[in-house]
């Protein structure tokens, strides 16, 4: 009996030594939003990284409500080694508080400027210092019901005249020209506002407003704001009117498009994730085209730049070097990035690195590959636009999507709305809280 106990004890002791031995290295923690986490992340990223770095253990933990959880953890001094935020505008706040490690030295040493798309690299900088890397990027396009278009002999619009003509034709056959809604996400208003700003006022004017060269009350901005109001309120193009817009949630608008109740939808490429399911159930086909320029000021079509979540290194982390290695591992392998992105339908984890057509996993939807290929070519020529959640500071950003509803309901005029917007921007300019804005190709109008 005694011998048996002794053997068990020795075995347990040996096991304990083994465990301690495994913990000799460094453990780094990375929290991520659970809804956006690819199911293959453990195998593709975590296990691969840990296998390549025996002295480091990467632990990826999903969080239901990452933003709020992270803010509380930071206050408690319990934040993870890698800080994920919902967007570039959020990181500024953490930088101000000294919570984020500057990454310039690591970036120079590891050649990150060559690995990450130029505009995305710039979007991670504040005051010329690199603080974050976008974990995903996206843009906005015009989705359309291909079946409806083919049945009616329509071709996707490439300019405002064609756009108006299709809208009129859709009304003639008794369907909504466009669908959208904000019932499940009130800030959806900013998707439309951003698209109209870029497609009507044009990239040059939006850029100038962003850097303070023209005020937000400029006629081009006012024209864009009023055109959206006109389409939404006067023309009732969006799902049949304002009240339906406010009642529609994310699923409702995809159903309207897939069933052919609506012809088109201006929305983000995050729809690549899941939109096919709605069309499959409806027995129809979908496709996308770039958003058509809506005025002469807009020039040739471009793509709005949008970074989604960002990742940074916690300045209080005792394992900064290991955390940097994890970031470098992620951005050094385009195929790995695309494996993660493919798992979530290219709606998340599209880390903005240089990938080519061949890097996409076999079986990737042609429409998705076409978007990323065209995006790279077009934005490479400087035909870029600006999404509000990437380039607007928080307070003006909230004002943009919240107070525009008062314009739509006729409580305030477009001028009053933009005057307040300009006032809030001026506060941000005075306090130096502006985000980096890459310049577009000029003179293309």
């Amino acid at each position, binding site marked *: 009996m005694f011998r048996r106990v002794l053997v068990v004890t020795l075995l347990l002791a040996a096991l304990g030594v083994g465990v301690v031995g495994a913990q000799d290295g460094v453990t780094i923690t990375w929290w991520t939003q659970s809804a956006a986490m690819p199911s293959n992340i453990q195998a593709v990223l975590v296990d691969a990284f840990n296998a390549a770095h025996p002295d480091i253990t990467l632990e990826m933990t999903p969080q239901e409500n990452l*933003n*709020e959880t992270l*803010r509380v953890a*930071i*206050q408690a001094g319990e934040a993870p080694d890698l800080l994920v935020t919902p967007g570039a505008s959020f990181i500024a*706040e*953490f930088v*101000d*508080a*000294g*919570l984020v490690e500057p990454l310039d030295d690591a970036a120079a040493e590891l050649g990150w400027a060559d690995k990450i798309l130029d505009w995305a690299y710039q979007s991670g900088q504040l005051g010329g210092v690199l603080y974050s890397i976008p974990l995903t990027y996206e843009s906005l396009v015009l989705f359309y019901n291909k079946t409806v278009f083919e049945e009616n002999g329509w071709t996707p619009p490439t300019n405002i005249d064609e756009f108006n003509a299709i809208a009129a034709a859709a009304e003639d056959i008794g369907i909504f020209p466009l669908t959208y809604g*904000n*019932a499940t*996400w*009130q*800030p959806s208003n900013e998707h439309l506002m951003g698209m109209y700003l870029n497609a009507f006022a044009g990239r040059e004017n939006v850029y100038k407003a962003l850097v303070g060269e023209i005020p937000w009350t400029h006629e081009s901005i006012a024209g864009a704001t009023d055109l959206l109001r006109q389409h939404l309120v006067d023309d009732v193009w969006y*799902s*049949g009117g*304002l*009240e*339906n*817009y*406010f*009642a*529609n*949630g994310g699923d*409702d608008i995809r159903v309207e498009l897939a069933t052919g109740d609506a012809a088109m939808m201006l929305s983000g490429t995050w729809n690549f994730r899941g939109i096919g399911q709605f069309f499959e159930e409806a027995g129809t086909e979908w496709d996308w085209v770039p958003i058509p320029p809506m005025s002469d000021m807009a020039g040739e079509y471009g793509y709005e730049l949008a970074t989604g979540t960002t990742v940074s290194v916690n300045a209080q982390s005792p394992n900064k070097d290991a955390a940097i290695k994890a970031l470098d591992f992620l951005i050094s392998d385009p195929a790995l990035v695309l494996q993660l992105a493919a798992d979530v339908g290219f709606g998340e984890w599209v880390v903005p690195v240089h990938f080519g057509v061949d890097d996409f996993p076999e079986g990737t939807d042609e429409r998705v590959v076409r978007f990323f290929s065209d995006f790279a070519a077009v934005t490479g020529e400087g035909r870029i636009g600006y999404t509000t959640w990437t380039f607007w500071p*928080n*307070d003006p*950003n*909230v004002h943009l999507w*919240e107070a525009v*509803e*008062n314009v*739509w*309901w006729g*409580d305030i005029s477009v001028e009053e709305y933009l005057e307040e917007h300009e006032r809030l921007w001026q506060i941000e300019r005075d306090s130096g809280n502006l985000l980096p804005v890459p310049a577009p190709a000029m003179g293309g109008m």
Partner: protein
Amino acid sequence: MAATQGTIQPGAVSLGGGSRRRELGRWLFILPVVFLNLVVIVGPALFGVYIAFTDWSGVGSMNFVGLENFARLLQDQVFWKALRNNLVWTAIFLVVPIVLGLLGAYMLTGIRRGQMFMRVAFFVPYVLPSVVTTHIWRYLMHPRVGLGQWLSDTFGIDFLDKAWLGSRDTALYGIAFMDNWHFWGFPLVLLLAAMSAVDVELYEVARLDGASRFQQFRHVTLPSIRPTLVFLLLMIAIWSALVFDYIFLTTGGGPANASEVMGTHLYTTAFERFQTGYAATIGLVMVLWVALVVGGFVYLRKRGWEI
């Protein structure tokens, strides 16, 4: 109530030095709870009061700005709209679920068979998560695929065929309706329990005196269940200041702030605009609301109201 007042509490009568030691012993037992309360309630609450006077963003340093946030509050039209909506919400909830609960409970007291089933049936919506309730009702109230549209198409009944949550004239009332649907079973069950405890002899005496059913309800039931009723009114008045989830999950406070309440305005201010200092100021108003309600309750008790 009288029995409680007449009960001699153990240790309430001074027994000299031994009593003091027992008193000290009780304090020692309760000390961990007091400490926990100080750490997780009182401390953060005092901190919340302090940050209402700062420009804190939620992380990093904070600067004392005096009464700047309070001055802003006076100018904040969205806040006043939200406060007005909270008052409307309170008025609705002090009336509708209470009246429904009273009626339902009173009718159920006359039922012997199946009462438990009805209790459970009425109470089930209360235990459903708000995210589930709002999801279901958002579809039922949808202007194109909802119940109103179906009634209109099928039976030609048009008056329900509206964008209840999409119109700013009806959004707040639409959400209040769905929250009432979920909530009214709670007062019903409490009131039913209170009514079941009323001495049946009181009803027999009332009947002998020729009291009608309504007079029995008015002069026997209501006075007997007053403590429960007042408790419900008190809690509803407090909860109405804190309402958040149903509105956040359906309209987010829109359209154009039509359903904005202090809770959603606070959330946007703290977690979208990152103006935590100002959000704490809004929070103080909510605290003030609750303090006024509780203060009124305590005042009435001191005036001798049996509540």
